[in-house]
């Protein structure tokens, strides 16, 4: 059977026929179809199963508010669970499968839940599954988890790309129905920068669903003509397939454009979707309205739909869900569906109108004052039972039932900044109210203006008002004539019934559940929602919230506004997570920073490691070396024996200039910086204002009014920020200028007894590198390799005679190659982070492991560096008693008693023989390594009163990694404590 329910006309392109598959069956549809319209055309009403009772379900709507017809769209890595068939655009070869059923959609074993529904009343799980305690994780929960969930993910990486973009405009118009189009026209002609977004692929909103004339032509034709006109305006950007998902602060809107979802796969280089961050001065919400249901027994059968949805399928997609259709309504709009269907040649078997004063028609039978109290048809509606006004019942055969309970304005975005909608008695609906997002106004049906004429005018007027706010003048566009039918509705929410009547169809929340919630005192809207899960499904209660409220109001004997309303939160409609990440995934999650010697290091086969965003060489394996320790040990030994070179560019460098530069640094560092002689470097310790250590580094004085300070790699950004804070906020009148030069200079450490000899071959003649002329902690601006400007610092992290030499970054690659060739005679080695770490531990130098944000100068054994004779950041609070206790942690060296043992970082320190409990905890190991020079493992750590416990043997434990042995407390300076080497 092929497209048995396809009608004439519609806005589909019959010249393009697409073949697609739902579960195992192949069907045909047309360009312009959604998956739902195409399935209905092919006589398929059953499209899904409900969450809890696995009830058979068909589409209830024709839009993004759909609770029932959700499927797994596409296959393989591109599978999209929980996709609304009602918005999924049909394309040739589309594949979709029903979900949350086993073994098949028509026969779902889990439907057993439906028979047991009495046991599964709202909140039942809070009252049971508690015995025996262990059974929750072992028995009950696994069963629940297996049953729960809707669709399934592909279990493969998402192969598509996503983009993020940024747009700016004077006026954002959300929704392209009559109001939105009129607003866009008004603003567009006034010259304002306008963005018009509509979530549909065919802009026009209800104009595409209705049959009445707009300015002498069909609404759809007028919409198409207007869109075409807007597209010719350079100041207007028309964005179909674009859902505005959130209204954020200060006129920022999030919008998701589905660039490729209507294609089998995105084009090469193009994203699947784009997250646009739209910054707009004004916004007009023209999101229309959603028809709400009337709740009655078994109102959830496939074929029972919004009356407006049936009308939309008939008029736009030329589809009817069945050949016999009945309508159940409490307002005039329901009748419009009936007459449209009749004119389309569909048999309208009856219109059941809850109102005694119902419209009477000659085209179809009307039962005024009747209600539907029962329906039949397990996998699809077969028959309804009407309770007649004058008593008695009538059974009517029909394959579809259109239900119209009135319309709810789509106020969602007006609530994103916690504005609360207000109840409108006349419309018996919530309309925008309270504090709207600043800059947002609302027009058309979203504001409770339901007629086409009213929507067009309110769109134009609202746009005019927004433009005059912007100081722009605008003339009202000539708007077409359109219908101006008044709203006639008599509120009617549900047909009382002892059995189950569905309110939230996806989550299977029934009127009985709401009554039970009330009975158990879950009466506030939020309690009701959370206890029954009303409105918590993927449709976010777009069709169920108000009905739920109304029933609660009825049970509580209150008016609806007294019961309250629920918050709507972003996103407006469920949104693919990938689009929020954009291109930031895999290797591109964050930028990668490369050191100047990276290319050369790669050629050497270096192994790299992340250090923040930087990639740094960890070690340089030589042929035949199979374990990193071999490479590391060799690099350490060779550096200490002769000379090694290490790229230290990633350390932060900040240029500090000005007459008050020295005074400024004296405030920033806790130790004295004011009196550093020109041409000298000093180690500096920086505290946070709370007295804990922030960072350490060196300050080199290149001139009276010029310093270059270094920071650790990790804190480069934070320290610069902090120094700007001190400069601008604490001493605004000092003459100090700061700028980062981290990137401008390639800097290499040249360390080892032969470092001076090696540098003599690089540095231009005339620079005296002798110990007297250029002693430890000297610095100078020099030239190298025949005139290249460079900076030379005699500082040592390794503890060896050592220098750091800096050249403009572009020459860093050439310099390291030169150092290597020039160093051949000394068997120079490049060394990586591992060797650097070993050498600094051997020397007792601290790094991030020790400067962990909870340590003080006192802990580091640098308490005396905190000057008492000057003001410096953190000095006052570093005096707090809790940071200066008798038994404060002190930095010590640790050495295994049995030299074959290691001393792992993260292990805790206890007094010898003490039990392994927290009360006996005395400290911990911060940094550990194997020292090739000492021939055993060594470590640095913090130990209570550690400085006075040198020589003590203590217990080292790491229960987590199964380590427990004795270590000796030693000085942190394992090597050359007197510092003879670095002064050599």
């Amino acid at each position, binding site marked *: 059977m092929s497209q048995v329910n396809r009608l004439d006309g519609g806005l589909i392109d019959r010249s393009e026929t697409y073949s697609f598959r739902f579960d195992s069956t192949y069907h045909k549809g047309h360009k312009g179809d959604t998956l739902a319209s195409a399935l209905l055309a092919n006589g398929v009403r059953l499209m899904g199963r409900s969450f809890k009772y696995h009830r058979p379900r068909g589409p209830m709507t024709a839009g993004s508010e759909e609770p029932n017809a959700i499927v797994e769209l596409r296959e393989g890595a591109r599978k999209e669970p929980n996709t609304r068939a009602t918005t999924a655009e049909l394309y040739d070869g589309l594949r979709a499968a029903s979900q949350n059923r086993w073994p098949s959609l028509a026969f779902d074993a889990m439907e057993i839940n439906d028979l047991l529904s009495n046991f599964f009343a709202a909140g039942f799980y809070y009252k049971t599954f508690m015995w025996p305690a262990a059974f929750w994780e072992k028995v009950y929960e696994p069963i629940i988890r297996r049953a729960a969930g809707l669709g399934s993910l592909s279990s493969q990486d998402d192969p598509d*790309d996503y*983009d*993020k*973009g*940024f*747009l*700016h405009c004077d006026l954002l118009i959300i929704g392209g129905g009559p109001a939105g189009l009129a607003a866009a026209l008004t603003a567009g002609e006034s010259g304002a920068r306008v963005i018009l977004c509509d979530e549909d692929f065919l802009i026009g909103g209800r104009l595409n669903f209705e049959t009445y004339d707009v300015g002498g032509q069909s609404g759809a034709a007028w919409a198409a003509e207007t869109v075409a006109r807007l597209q010719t305006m350079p100041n207007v950007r028309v964005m179909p397939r674009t859902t505005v998902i959130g209204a954020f602060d200060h006129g920022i809107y999030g919008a998701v454009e589905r660039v490729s979802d209507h294609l089998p796969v995105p084009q*090469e*280089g*193009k*994203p699947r979707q*784009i997250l646009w*961050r739209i*910054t707009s001065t004004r916004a007009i919400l023209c999101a229309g309205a959603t028809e709400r249901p009337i709740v009655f027994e078994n109102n959830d059968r496939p074929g029972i739909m919004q009356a407006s949805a049936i009308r939309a399928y008939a008029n736009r997609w030329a589809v009817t869900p069945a050949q016999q259709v009945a309508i159940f309504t409490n307002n005039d709009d329901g009748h419009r569906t009936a007459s449209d269907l009749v004119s389309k040649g569909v048999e309208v078997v009856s219109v059941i109108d809850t109102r005694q004063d119902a419209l009477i028609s000659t085209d179809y039978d009307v039962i005024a004052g009747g209600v539907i109290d029962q329906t039949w048809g397990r996998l699809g509606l077969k028959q309804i039972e009407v309770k007649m006004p004058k008593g008695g019942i009538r059974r009517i055969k029909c394959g579809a039932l259109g239900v119209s309970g009135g319309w709810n304005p789509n106020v969602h975005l007006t609530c994103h900044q916690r504005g609360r909608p207000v109840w409108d008695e006349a419309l018996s609906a919530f309309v925008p109210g309270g504090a709207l997002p600043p800059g947002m106004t609302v027009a058309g049906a979203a504001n409770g203006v339901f007629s086409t004429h009213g929507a067009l005018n309110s769109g134009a007027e609202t746009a005019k008002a927004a433009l005059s706010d912007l100081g722009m003048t605008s003339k009202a566009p000539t708007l077409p004539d359109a219908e101006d039918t008044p709203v006639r509705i008599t509120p009617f929410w549900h047909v009382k019934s002892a059995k189950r009547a569905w309110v939230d169809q996806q989550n299977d929340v029934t009127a009985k559940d709401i009554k039970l919630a009330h009975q158990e005192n879950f009466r506030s809207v939020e309690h009701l929602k959370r206890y029954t899960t009303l409105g918590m499904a993927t449709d976010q209660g777009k069709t169920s919230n108000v009905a739920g409220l109304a029933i609660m109001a009825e049970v509580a004997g209150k008016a609806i506004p007294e019961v309250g309303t629920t918050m709507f939160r972003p996103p407006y409609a469920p949104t693919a997570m990938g689009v929020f990440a954009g291109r*930031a995934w895999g290797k*591109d999650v*964050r*930028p*990668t*920073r*490369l*050191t*100047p010697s*990276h*290319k050369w290091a790669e050629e050497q086969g270096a192994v790299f490691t992340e250090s923040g965003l*930087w990639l740094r060489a960890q070690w340089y394996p030589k042929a035949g070396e199979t374990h990193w320790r071999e490479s590391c040990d060799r690099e350490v030994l060779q550096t200490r024996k002769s000379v090694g070179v290490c790229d230290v*560019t990633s350390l932060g460098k900040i*240029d500090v*200039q*000005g*007459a*008050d530069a020295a005074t400024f640094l004296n405030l920033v560092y806790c130790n004295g910086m004011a009196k550093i002689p020109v041409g000298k470097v000093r180690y500096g310790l920086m505290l946070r204002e709370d007295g804990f250590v922030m960072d350490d580094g060196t300050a080199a004085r290149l001139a009276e*009014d*010029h310093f270059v300070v270094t920071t650790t790699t990790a804190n480069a950004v934070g320290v610069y920020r902090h120094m700007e804070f001190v400069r601008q906020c604490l001493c605004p*009148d*000092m*003459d100090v*200028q700061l*700028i*980062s*030069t*981290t*990137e*401008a*200079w*390639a800097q290499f450490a040249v360390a080892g007894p032969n470092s001076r000899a090696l540098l003599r071959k690089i540095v231009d003649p005339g620079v005296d590198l002798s110990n007297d002329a250029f002693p430890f902690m000297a610095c100078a601006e020099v030239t190298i*390799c*025949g*005139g*290249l*400007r460079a900076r030379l610092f005699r500082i040592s992290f390794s503890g060896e005679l050592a220098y750091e030499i800096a*050249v*403009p*970054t*572009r*020459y*860093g*690659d*050439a*310099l390291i190659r030169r150092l290597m060739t020039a160093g051949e005679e000394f068997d120079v080695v490049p060394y990586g982070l591992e060797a650097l770490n070993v050498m600094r531990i051997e020397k007792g130098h601290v790094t991030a492991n020790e400067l962990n944000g909870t340590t003080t100068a006192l802990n580091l054994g640098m308490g005396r560096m905190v000057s008492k004779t000057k003001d410096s950041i953190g000095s006052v609070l570093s005096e707090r008693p809790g940071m200066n206790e008798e038994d404060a942690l002190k930095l010590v060296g640790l050495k295994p008693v049995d030299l074959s043992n290691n001393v792992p970082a993260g292990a805790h320190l206890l007094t010898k023989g003490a039990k392994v409990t927290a009360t006996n905890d005395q400290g911990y190991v911060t940094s550990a390594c194997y020292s090739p020079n000492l021939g055993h493992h060594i470590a640095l750590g913090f130990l209570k009163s550690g400085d006075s416990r040198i020589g003590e043997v203590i217990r080292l434990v790491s229960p987590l990694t199964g380590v427990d042995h004795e270590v000796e407390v030693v000085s942190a300076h394992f090597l050359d404590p007197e510092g003879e080497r670095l002064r050599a």
Partner: protein
Amino acid sequence: MHDLAPLHALGGAEARIDTVAGVTLTENMGLALASVSARKGQETACRAHLGELLEGSAPEPGKTVLHDPEASFWMAPDQWMVGAPFGTHEDLAAQLKARFCETASITEQTDAWVCFDMRGDGIEAVMQLCANIDIERMQTGDAVRTVIHYMGVYVLRRDPANWLRILGSRSSAGSLHHALVTAMKAAL
């Protein structure tokens, strides 16, 4: 003259060039840069020196003065970046020190940055996928500091207006290049 060969930020010996649908992205190594920060109390004098250098006036906030051989854009209150051809001005910082004397703090910035020139029709669509700036309203002579995929950059609109100059930190040149080329492919 020294004998060390420079390496391009993207790691090549030559400048990298990419073209997508008529928009060209070129790595530009030919730029010498130095920052000029007015000393306290010397703001006017410093501005005057800069104006002199540019044969006009110092750039206002958010602006660049396109001038040859030296050009300049505003970085921060009383702070500007000066650029000039690398070939003739490798020692730009030294030259500026001589000119500004005690009125300003000069800092060499040449190799702190990687410079990309993006030219062609469609650059606006590309930038809309890169940075949160109102590129449609950006005119020739505008300079803005912004962020492209977590990387701080300067975007300068040159003459003609279908020419953007993008300065990013040199160490992440590869990531910035990747972001720009990806956006070109997506937008064009």
